[in-house]
C-alpha cells in the first residue's frame, strides 16, 4: 500500500470516527442497535486512533459465502479503525485454524478476532494466545472453556430459529405441516437453529407437526435432492412450510418445490439473508430469511478489539457477550437486510 493510500485511509478513518455517533442511531438501514453497540460506537468515536495496529481476522472457511462476506466486512471495519488486518482462512479444518492462530501469535499481532470452526478444538490455541498476552474476541461462533476473552460478539442462533417458528404460528393460525431441513450434523449453528425452531413448535406439536426432519448439510444440491425425495412421499398431502437452517438449502428446496408445481402451496424459510435469498424473498419465491447482521457483528467485534488494544475499552465492558438481535426478513421489511445493496434493481 502506498503512502498516499495510507494517508487516505487515515483521513477516512478520522471522518468515520467523527460521524460515528450519527451512524449509531440507524446503522444497517433502520436496524435497532442495542445499548451495548451504541456504547461501543461512542467509545470508538472518542478513542484516538493515530497509531496503526495489526489485527488478525480468522474465519472457519472462505468456501462459504457467509464467511467471505464476514471477512470482507472485518477488513472494511479494520480500515475504518486504522488497523491492518491479517486475513486467515481456516479452510473448514480446526487444525488449519489452530496453526493460523499459533502463527500470528508468534508474529506478534496486537489482537485476534476469530470465528472458531469448532467450539472445543479451538479452545486450546485461543487460550494459549490469551496466555501469551494477545487479546482475543470471538465472533458469530462460541468457543467453550476459555478464560479471559475480551468479548464474544454474535447473533443468537436460537433466537433466529425461534423467529422462523414464530413466523409459522403467525401466518398459519390454524396449524401447519412443517418440514425441517437441518444443517450439517454436529455444527454449532445447525444445532442452535434447530433448537430454536423446536422451542417454538414442540409446545404446539399437535397443530404444527414437524412431519419430516432431514439434514441437507447446509448444501444447495442436497437441499434440492432431499426436498425432491421428501415431496415424492407427500405429493397427495404436501407440507405447508419448509424451514431450512440456511439459505443454500432453502434455495435448493425452492428448485424442488417449483419443479413439483407446488410453489403456491409451500412456503419456504431460509436463514442468513444472503443476497440471492433476499432477491428471492423480494420476488416471492422464498417467504423469508433470517438476518443475523454479519456486517454489524464484524464492525462491533473489530471495534472492541481495537478499543482494547488502544486502552480505550471500559473495564466494565471487558468479558461481555454482545448479541445482535436477529430479524426475519420478509417482503414487508426488506430494507432491514444488510446486503440488499448487492441485489441489483433494489
Amino acid at each position, binding site marked *: 500500500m502506498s503512502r498516499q493510500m495510507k494517508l487516505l485511509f487515515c483521513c477516512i478513518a478520522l471522518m468515520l470516527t467523527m460521524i460515528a455517533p450519527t451512524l449509531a442511531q440507524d446503522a444497517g438501514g433502520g436496524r435497532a442497535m442495542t445499548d451495548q453497540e451504541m456504547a461501543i460506537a461512542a467509545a470508538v468515536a472518542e478513542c484516538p486512533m493515530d497509531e496503526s495496529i495489526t489485527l488478525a481476522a480468522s474465519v472457519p472457511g472462505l468456501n462459504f459465502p457467509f464467511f467471505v462476506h464476514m471477512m470482507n466486512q472485518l477488513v472494511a471495519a479494520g480500515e475504518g479503525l486504522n488497523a491492518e488486518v491479517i486475513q486467515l482462512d481456516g479452510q473448514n479444518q480446526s487444525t488449519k485454524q489452530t496453526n493460523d492462530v499459533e502463527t500470528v501469535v508468534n508474529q506478534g499481532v496486537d489482537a485476534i478476532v476469530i470465528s472458531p470452526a469448532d467450539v472445543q478444538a479451538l479452545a486450546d490455541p485461543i487460550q494459549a494466545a490469551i496466555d501469551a498476552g494477545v487479546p482475543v474476541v470471538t465472533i458469530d461462533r462460541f468457543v467453550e472453556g476459555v478464560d479471559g476473552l475480551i468479548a464474544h460478539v454474535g447473533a443468537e442462533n436460537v433466537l433466529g430459529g425461534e423467529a422462523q417458528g414464530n413466523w409459522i404460528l403467525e401466518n398459519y393460525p390454524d396449524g401447519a405441516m412443517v418440514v425441517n431441513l437441518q444443517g450439517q450434523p454436529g455444527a454449532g449453528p445447525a444445532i442452535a437453529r434447530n433448537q430454536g425452531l423446536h422451542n417454538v413448535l414442540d409446545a404446539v406439536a399437535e397443530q404444527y407437526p414437524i412431519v419430516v426432519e432431514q439434514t441437507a448439510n447446509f448444501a444447495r444440491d442436497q437441499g434440492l435432492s432431499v426436498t425432491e*425425495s421428501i415431496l415424492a412421499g407427500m405429493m397427495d398431502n404436501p407440507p405447508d412450510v419448509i424451514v431450512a437452517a440456511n439459505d443454500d438449502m432453502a434455495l435448493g428446496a425452492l428448485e424442488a418445490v417449483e419443479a413439483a408445481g407446488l410453489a403456491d402451496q409451500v412456503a419456504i424459510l431460509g436463514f442468513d439473508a444472503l443476497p440471492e435469498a433476499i432477491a428471492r424473498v423480494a420476488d416471492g419465491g422464498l417467504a423469508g430469511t433470517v438476518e443475523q447482521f454479519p456486517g454489524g457483528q464484524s464492525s462491533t467485534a473489530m471495534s472492541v478489539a481495537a478499543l482494547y488494544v488502544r486502552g480505550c475499552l471500559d473495564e466494565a465492558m471487558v468479558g461481555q457477550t454482545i448479541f445482535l438481535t436477529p430479524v426475519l426478513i420478509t417482503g414487508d421489511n426488506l430494507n432491514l437486510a444488510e446486503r440488499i445493496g448487492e441485489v441489483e434493481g433494489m
Partner: protein
Amino acid sequence: MNQARTDAAITNRQQQGVSIINVLSRFAPVIFLFVLMAVFAIIEPNFLKANNLLQVARQVSITGLIAIGMTFVILTGGIDLSVGSLLALAGMVGAVVAKGGTANTLSLTTTESTGYGVLAAILAAVAIGVLGGFIQGTLITRLGVPAFVVTLGGLSAFRGATLLLSGGGPISGFEDAYEWWGKARLPEPDGIPVPVIIFLGFAVLAHIILRYTRYGRQVYAVGGNPEAARLSGLNVKKILLSVYVIVGFFAGLGGFVLSSRLGASEAVAGTGYELTVIASVVIGGTSLFGGEGNVLGTVIGSMLIGVLTNGLVLMNVSPYVQQIIIGLIIVLAVGFDRFVKSRRSV
C-alpha cells in the same frame, strides 16, 4: 453303471452350482440393487412411483457421469481425488463465460444476456476439465508422482482456483437455454430428465469403447499388469495420461450440468463428490487394483447409492442413522461381490 450315474449326477450338480455362482458373480450389484429397491417399495409405496425413480436417476446423474470417467482411471489401477474440485472450477468457468464476467450481483429485472451463450459455456467447462486432467496426467506419467498425491494436490488447488475466480460467492441467474441442460425433461413435463439422458448416453458410449475397441483392451491391459503391457509394446504412459484426461472431461461436463441443474455455480459445489464417485465405481464391481470391472457396473453402483439415499429420506430415517446404514451397505455390497467372485474360481 450305478456308480457312473452317480458320478454324472454329482458332476451335473457341481456344474449347476458353478453356473449359479457365475451368474451371481456377474450380476451381484444388480441383484443387490433390486433387493434394496424391493425392500424400499414394500416399506414405502411412493418409492416405486415413476417420478420418484426418475428423480433418483437425475440425482445420481452428475456423480454418475464422473464415475464413468473414474472407471477408466480405476481400471488402470489409478485414482483421482480431485474430481469434486475440478467440477466446481469447470462449473464456475462455464458460468463466467455464460454471464460474460464474474459480476455475481443478482438482478431482479429481466436478465439481458451479455455473455457468450450456452454452447461456449459448455465448451469452456469441458475444456477446463480436460486441461485439469491433462495437467494431472502429465505430472503422474512424466514426473512419476503417485496419482494419489497429484490429485490430492488437485483437490486443493482446483478448489482454491474456484474461490479465487468467484471471490467465494455464487454466480446465478442464467438464461433459459443454459438451465435447459439441467432442468428440462424429454418430453416435458414428465419425461426423462436431460441429465439422465446425458449420463446414460455417455455410459453406453464408454461401455462400447471399453468393451469393443483396441483402446479399451489396452486400458484393461495396463491395469492388469503394467509391466507386461509395456513389454508387449503398449505405450503405457500415453494410456495412463488419457484416462486422467477422460475423467477430467467428465468432471468438466458434470460441473456444467450441476450448475445448470441448480441454476447457480457455487464455489462449494462438489465437495466430497470424490468419495461418492469412487464408492459408485467400487460398488459396481471394479477392482481398486485395476484390470477388472466395467462401466455398466458403475451405472448400477451409482443407482444403488442414489436409491439408498432417496429411500432412507422417504422413510424419514434419522440422518445420523442414515450415515451408518450407507456405510454398512457399501461394505456389504462390495463384500458380497468379492465373496461370489472368490467362489467362482472353485
